[in-house]
């Protein structure tokens, strides 16, 4: 049995066109859904499959859809989060550019399940090519009657709107994304109320990631049990792991959940560049804790990576070798969060500024030994004290590298210079 689900036809050159998608078995789950399943049954199937959000949080997709109230007098919305901007993550872009109809089919099924008549794909501004591909695919889907009024004679109507962002990492956070669509300054919102109850235009809304929705047609077609058998007990199905950094063969690899990290790096990624030694791994996009090389045996599923002290997140696996300066790498990430902080919560807005300032002086050889405790104290004052996870994410590389690579920080401070100089 092939373990590829969403990437099964990814390398076929014309897969982005509706004819090729149809030829390869596309748009079969949709008629099955509309003819044989009630919205509640769709939700039940997805719940049973164990599908969890592939955007980072790993929340049950079926449960998320189940939270959208069926008796609400307000319109409901399904929003596909295609704002992929988590550093180290580049899977959604490939899914969008190469197999857009798979995503659209997933969106239609999801929208039907929650009773939405309007759905948005929120795509980041920089994905101009992906937006063009989606625009074409949406038009093709309308022309064939998969979108619009009375889809396939079922009486179900759905309009799908492609919406381009304007360049802001925070808009990948669901409440900020909602504000972005509403055309107001996209600051994050306190939850509750959750988007399921009061989301887009204050109406019930489900927000799902591209990879998550791309899995849905396959689950409908092949059944919940089929999907649940792939992967591990609690992390079912496959995951696209985005391998980058100092490996010989970086790229996207769709593999069953629970595959050992070691296999991903050495079998698929063909090992570390230039025969160097592995030093550290970021397993789930930069919003996860840095792991030392000793954790290379960890299995890549939500539970195992959490047990190993980090998070599977979006599946963006970044590899750092012995030549990487961990202080400089951490500084780069902290600067990213400082720049992208929306500025709403003081601990994040001020905290990321100070983390960045202190990290910079350590990297520049002007740090003090007390700075390490100061960084940990600062991190503690951010973590759990903000509306959204961005501030928390900024502390993750800091606290984890101080824990695992304290010696490197001390070397910077004692020797008053970066021991790696220009190596990163």
């Amino acid at each position, binding site marked *: 049995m092939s373990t590829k689900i969403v990437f099964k036809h990814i390398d076929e050159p014309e897969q982005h066109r509706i004819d090729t998608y149809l030829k390869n078995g596309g748009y079969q789950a949709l008629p099955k859904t509309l003819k044989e399943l009630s919205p509640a049954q769709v939700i039940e199937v997805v719940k049973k499959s164990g599908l969890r959000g592939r955007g980072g949080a790993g929340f049950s997709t079926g449960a998320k859809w189940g939270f959208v109230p069926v008796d609400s007098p307000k319109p409901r919305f399904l929003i596909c989060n295609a704002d992929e901007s988590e550093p180290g993550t580049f899977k959604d872009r490939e899914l969008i550019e190469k197999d857009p109809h798979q995503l659209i089919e997933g969106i239609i099924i999801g929208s039907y399940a929650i009773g939405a008549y309007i759905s948005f794909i929120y795509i980041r501004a920089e994905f101009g090519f992906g937006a063009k591909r989606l625009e074409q695919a949406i038009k093709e889907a309308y022309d064939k009657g998969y979108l619009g009024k009375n889809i396939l004679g079922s009486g179900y109507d759905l309009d799908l709107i492609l919406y381009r962002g304007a360049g802001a990492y925070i808009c990948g956070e669901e409440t900020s994304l909602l504000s972005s669509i509403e055309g107001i300054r996209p600051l994050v919102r306190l939850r509750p109320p959750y988007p399921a109850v009061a989301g887009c235009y204050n109406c019930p809304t489900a927000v799902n990631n591209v990879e998550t929705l791309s899995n849905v047609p396959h689950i409908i077609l092949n059944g919940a049990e089929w999907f649940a058998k792939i992967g591990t007990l609690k992390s079912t199905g496959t995951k696209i792991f985005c391998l980058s950094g100092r490996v010989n063969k970086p790229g996207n690899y769709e593999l069953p959940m629970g595959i050992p990290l070691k296999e991903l790096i050495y079998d698929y990624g063909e090992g570390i560049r230039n025969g160097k030694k592995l030093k550290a791994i970021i397993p789930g996009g930069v919003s996860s804790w840095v792991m030392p090389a000793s954790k290379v045996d960890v299995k890549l599923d939500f539970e195992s990576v959490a047990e190993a002290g980090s998070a599977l997140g979006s599946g963006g696996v*970044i590899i750092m070798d012995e030549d990487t300066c961990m202080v400089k790498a951490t500084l780069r990430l902290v600067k990213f969060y400082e720049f992208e902080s929306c500025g709403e919560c003081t601990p994040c807005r001020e905290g990321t500024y100070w983390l960045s300032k202190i990290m910079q002086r350590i990297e520049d050889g002007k740090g003090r030994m007390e700075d390490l405790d100061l960084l940990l104290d600062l991190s503690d004052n951010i973590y759990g004290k903000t509306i959204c996870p961005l501030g928390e994410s900024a502390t993750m590389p800091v606290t984890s590298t101080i824990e695992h690579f304290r010696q490197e920080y001390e070397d910077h401070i004692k020797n008053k210079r970066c021991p790696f100089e220009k190596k990163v």
Partner: protein
Amino acid sequence: MISRETEEKIRNLKGKYPKVKTCVLPAFHILYQEEGYLSQEGIQKVSELLGVPLLELHEVLSFYVFFPTRRIGKYWIRVCDNLSCSLMGAESIIKYLEEKLKIRVGQTTPDGLFTLGTEECLGSCGTAPMMMVNEEFHENLTREKIDKLIEELSRK
């Protein structure tokens, strides 16, 4: 002056979305296509066409980085220098471009052809180092690739 065609496109946005303020970002995209940046005059026009107060437009616009609000070079080069790209040599790519174009990050060449900038992760980490030139991605960058590209763009 923005063209009648662009004006029409922006006006037509109004029926396309559930609420009028949702038209703001699409209107900016249309304006950007026409002008290559968002001029004060253009933003004013969006405000009139959509009936959204100017203040509310700036409130939104100032949050984002995608639209320049002053005229920039014909080719906007944005090099990703986030972690994965840095690990693969983004710094030396930026330095090379600075030397080659004889400008620093944030500047535009005197002939108005190139503006050099850096960018946060562009979702292209598996093909690092990379950069965006206007809407196009250029991946697995080497000095040779950059030489070729700059030469091509300079000739256009």
